[in-house]
């Protein structure tokens, strides 16, 4: 804050002291308002639902934070968690980024010390909005550093409500990104400051900023690659300076040493291929410095040229050889798939389906950019132009940050988050410079031909505008109109952001909301009902088996041991659970007993019509199970390649454990008026096996809307020899001619499986009926949304050969009927 009055005085040299004070007052109050605004706009989720943790991963973060508050840092650091991945456990301290938890606990301790009696949950819920507020402050200072304080203010305002950032920082989304974006921007700001000043203190600060970032989020890899890239660009554009040397070296060495203190990162800075760029640039920097020194010592330019050539060639050769040796000897690990997929975006799709299948990793369409940035997109090129007109070390940095992050945002939807600060800053430059020009125009007493101060485009612009003023009498009216236009646009931006925050980004996804028949809101709170039941009605050491999606929530809210959870590090273990779920009860009970399971939890949407339940995820369980245990074959669960649960379903499907657990007692239930009992609303069919009988499990609890069902594993009968080797129905593996062959890859498109859908598409007009398309839904369920669509299209295309060559079909309606998100729409080509 100390620098603020100083530069303010620079800016407003011509004004009297009193005006300067007014300006300061206005600026500080704007900043305060922005600070508050950034906080309260993120409270929509608390207003609409309640103060709670959202989604899946935040529950793990919350649980570890709770542990940290109760047991202290050293216990946390050495924590071996017995409650997850039973019987393996998880070394928590060494497998997480502790920054978020430590921050929350620190805030909690401070509040406690100040005698505020808060619960740690409230702190966790509000951590993300609090850090978002802090980010606005950093954005202000950053904007001030690269342009002027006006741009800083605008940047703060823009980033406070930008949907791209809000999506990850609403109250309750207690995830790493919440604090990491603050850390990212702070590191960048301090580094740019260090480059501008060449001060050791600032570079030290950037090293610590980097340390905080490393401790908070895996996205630190972006920093550690962007900064050397930036330095490299400065070097080749001939902007090498002593300031840069000091800033970079100090930041790199200290930052690296500090980052090694985080156990999860460890020695990666010297060993992993992703961190090699920064090291290479570090050595290049030394070469530059050395050359500079030699140039200083040698007077003969010709000699120096020769020397230069030899040194550069040698340095590059040595670097290349070292890298090659490191790679070959295995000392330097190669790039990870995730990193590689950013550089070559098509890589993931071909080689690592597990990365490509995550919905956050889909490539971005223009409408997503529009949704998250709105008018900032229009301002961005203008801002780029402004930056290029006034090139400095700082503007080069922001341009590079903007462009690289923009590129990455195009590759993966979730990286829009990283691009947001840069887009806000660059757009802020455009807004601020334009508005400033216009207001200067309005305020200028006419006919002052300024002598064009050459420094900074602001000065040259105002001078040219002044020239303009002379020649055009309507200039002022035009400027007023333009100003109104600009403010209209900005107000649209504010409207858009508020609406998006309130309607799209505030849903906690653990409490489901639906619209009732009369437009009223219906809340399904079944998840928490079930987890609290577990907590209160089961023995302390009970083990709960469920699909991995619910692992974090069960341990955090139910406080019970789970077999698998969202930290999917052990595929075999997950496959074991998948196998148990897809076997007959007799076979499954063997696995269940071997895992010491006491309760089995399934999520079922047949009553409410909730479509992302376990039956719809079931094919994934089969595939993952089958990937490790070839006993499980996907075709056994399909009929002619179709996944169905009604009377025509495969016998193995109708008798597997998952089916039984989901549909137990469902056959006698009336779900919808005018439909037979046992009508599954999520899939729109009457179930095929209404008489489900359980032998080794018994129903323990079903929530009020049947979304979560919990079963108790019965203890073994005394001395009663089990006849485990009599499956109820014989295998039908060979009956299906077009058996889909998945080759270990879950989610492979098999157009032949979709034959039945095609008949539907050919016969039924998808625009009219939605019921017949339901059976197809299950088929594409396992695939990533888009792959599903493409797969269907391929099937359509392939089968019509010679019959209807020019058939093109809108699959969007089909997919919409499958209750996929809007993101799944697609039209087949002809």
């Amino acid at each position, binding site marked *: 804050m100390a620098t603020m009055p100083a530069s303010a005085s620079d800016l407003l040299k011509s004004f009297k002291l009193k005006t300067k004070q007014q300006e300061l007052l206005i600026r500080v109050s704007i900043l305060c308002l922005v600070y508050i605004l950034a906080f309260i706009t993120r409270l929509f989720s608390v207003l609409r639902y309640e103060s709670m943790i959202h989604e899946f991963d935040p529950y793990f973060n919350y649980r570890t934070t709770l542990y940290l508050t109760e047991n202290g840092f050293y216990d946390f650091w050495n924590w071996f968690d017995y409650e997850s991945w039973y019987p393996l456990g998880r070394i928590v301290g060494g497998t997480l980024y502790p920054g978020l938890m430590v921050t929350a606990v620190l805030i909690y301790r401070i509040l406690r010390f100040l005698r505020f009696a808060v619960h740690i949950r409230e702190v966790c819920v509000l951590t993300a909005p609090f850090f978002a507020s802090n980010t606005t402050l950093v954005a202000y200072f950053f904007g001030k550093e690269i342009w002027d304080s006006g741009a800083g203010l605008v940047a703060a305002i823009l980033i406070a409500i930008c949907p791209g950032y809000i999506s990850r920082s609403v109250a309750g989304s207690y995830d790493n990104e919440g604090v990491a974006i603050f850390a990212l921007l702070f590191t960048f700001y301090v580094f740019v400051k260090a480059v501008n000043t060449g001060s050791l203190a600032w570079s030290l600060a950037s090293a610590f900023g980097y340390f905080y970032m490393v401790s908070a989020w895996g996205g630190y890899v972006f920093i550690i690659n962007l900064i050397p890239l930036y330095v490299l660009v400065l070097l080749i554009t001939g902007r090498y300076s002593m300031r840069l040397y000091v800033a970079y070296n100090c930041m790199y060495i200290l930052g690296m040493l500090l980052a090694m203190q985080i156990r999860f990162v460890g020695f990666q800075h010297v060993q992993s291929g992703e961190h090699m760029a920064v090291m290479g640039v570090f050595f290049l920097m030394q070469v530059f410095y050395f050359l500079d020194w030699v140039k200083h010592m040698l007077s003969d330019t010709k000699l120096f040229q020769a020397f230069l050539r030899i040194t550069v060639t040698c340095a590059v050769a040595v670097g290349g050889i070292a890298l090659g040796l490191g790679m070959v000897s295995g000392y330097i690990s190669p790039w990870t798939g995730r990193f590689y997929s950013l550089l070559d975006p098509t890589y993931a799709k071909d080689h690592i389906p597990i990365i490509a299948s995550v919905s956050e990793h889909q490539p971005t369409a223009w409408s997503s950019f529009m949704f998250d940035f709105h008018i900032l997109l229009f301002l961005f090129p203008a801002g780029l132009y402004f930056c290029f007109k006034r090139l400095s070390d700082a503007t080069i940095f922001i341009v590079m940050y903007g462009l690289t992050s923009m590129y990455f945002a*195009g590759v993966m939807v979730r990286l829009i988050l990283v691009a947001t600060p840069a887009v806000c800053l660059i757009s802020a430059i455009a807004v601020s410079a334009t508005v400033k020009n216009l207001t200067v125009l309005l305020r200028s007493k006419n006919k002052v031909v300024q002598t064009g101060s050459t420094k900074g485009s602001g000065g040259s612009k105002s001078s040219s505008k002044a020239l303009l003023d002379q020649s055009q009498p309507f200039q002022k009216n035009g400027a007023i109109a333009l100003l109104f236009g600009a403010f209209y646009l900005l107000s649209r931006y504010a409207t858009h952001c508020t609406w998006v925050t309130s309607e799209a980004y505030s849903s906690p996804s653990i409490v489901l909301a639906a619209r009732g028949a009369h437009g009223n809101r219906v809340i399904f709170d079944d998840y928490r009902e079930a987890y609290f039941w577990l907590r209160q009605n089961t023995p302390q050491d009970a083990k709960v088996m469920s699909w991995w999606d619910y692992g974090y929530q069960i341990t955090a809210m139910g406080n019970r041991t789970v077999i698998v959870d969202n930290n999917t590090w052990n595929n075999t273990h997950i496959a074991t659970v998948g196998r148990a779920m897809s076997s007959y009860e007799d076979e499954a009970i063997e696995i269940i007993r071997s895992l010491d399971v006491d309760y089995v939890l399934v999520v079922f949407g047949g009553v409410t019509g909730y479509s992302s339940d376990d039956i719809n995820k079931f094919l994934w369980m089969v595939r993952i199970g089958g990937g490790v245990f070839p006993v499980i074959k996907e075709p056994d669960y399909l009929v002619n390649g179709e996944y169905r649960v009604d009377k025509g379903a495969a016998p193995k499907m109708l008798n597997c454990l998952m089916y039984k657990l989901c549909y137990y007692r469902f056959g006698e239930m009336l779900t919808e008026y005018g439909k037979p009992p046992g009508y599954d609303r999520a899939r729109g069919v009457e179930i095929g096996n209404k008489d489900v009988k359980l032998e080794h499990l018994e129903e323990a609890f079903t929530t009020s809307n049947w979304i979560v069902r919990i079963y108790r594993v019965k203890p073994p009968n005394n001395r009663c020899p089990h006849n485990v080797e009599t499956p109820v129905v014989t295998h039908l593996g060979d009956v299906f001619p077009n058996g889909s*062959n998945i080759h270990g890859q879950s989610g492979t498109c098999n157009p032949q499986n979709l034959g039945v859908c095609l008949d539907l598409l050919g016969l039924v007009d998808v625009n009219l009926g939605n019921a017949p398309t339901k059976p197809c839904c299950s088929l594409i369920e396992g695939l990533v949304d888009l792959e599903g669509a493409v797969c269907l299209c391929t099937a359509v*295309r392939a089968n019509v050969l010679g019959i209807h060559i020019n058939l093109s079909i809108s699959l969007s309606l089909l997919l919409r009927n499958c209750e996929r998100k809007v*993101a799944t729409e697609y039209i*087949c080509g002809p």
Partner: protein
Amino acid sequence: MAAHFFTLSIITLSLFVVASSGELESELVADLLTLQSESKSGVIHLDDRTVSKFLTYPRIPRPYSFLIFFDAANFHDKPELRLRELRREFEIVASSFITNHNSSNTKLFFGDIEFRESQSSFQLFGVNSLPHVRLVGPTAKSLKDDSDVMDQGDFSRLAESMAEFVESRTKLTVGPIHRPPVLSKMQLGLITALLLLCLPLVAKRIFAGETLIHDPKIWLSGAVFVYFFSVSGAMHNIIRKMPMFLVDRNDPNKLVFFYQGSGMQLGAEGFAVGFLYTVVGLLLAVVTHVLVYVKDATAKRLAMLFTLLVSFWAVKKVILLDNWKTGYGIHGFWPSSWN
């Protein structure tokens, strides 16, 4: 005597028949070998006539198996079918098989059939979907029912999995797959040498500060391009292999350029919107930085007016398109009396 003669003649006759059929078979194989050597990749191009000659007509068991790729030239431009790619892989398998056996293996031949010119063969095999690869074994009587179809899964790893399919069904070894290298060794060596030669020169010029990279205009246009590339969703189009436009389902003469539904876009649509984004931003920059230096007042006014109109139109268009595409009705939370 007559009986003797009769027996003898039968024996001779049957011997003759056996000999002639053996001769016929060897003739067929020789024909196939010539055809194979004529083709560049070793894939024999079959049509209705040759299918009957080599597959329908010969006596069972035939002395060879046939692996047939069903091709349709008019579907080559459909990226989802991957016909071109699969065909290339098929050719690689064929040429690898032939080189690994020194062109002397007569047990397995590779062939392809084109849809347009050999429709009756397609019917004969009962092929109604593509991509389709079929192995006709020596004992297959009915081409439709007795031949093995290659599964979707066998395409998944391209040439390697196709070779595995062949090996598992025919008990023949295909051997290692020979892929043509991306760059020949000669080219690689040349490129390395050139790079090494250029390195000192480039370094020198960089130090002297007189290359293109010191020109901000180049950087600026590069930056704007990267921006355009990202926001137009070009990456989306590349990864998803989206077509530029579609043909309207109801009216085949109409083209669909804009696709309703967020998270998905067509190629042309993305570029159009990206262009609108870029135009507005650049116009703003031009107005503030270039237009002010124009001397002529009328020209200036006209340019200004033009800029205003274009920007207004572009922004309005994009916002309308976005609302239409995503289906979101974005509205402010004003007091309800205001609306």
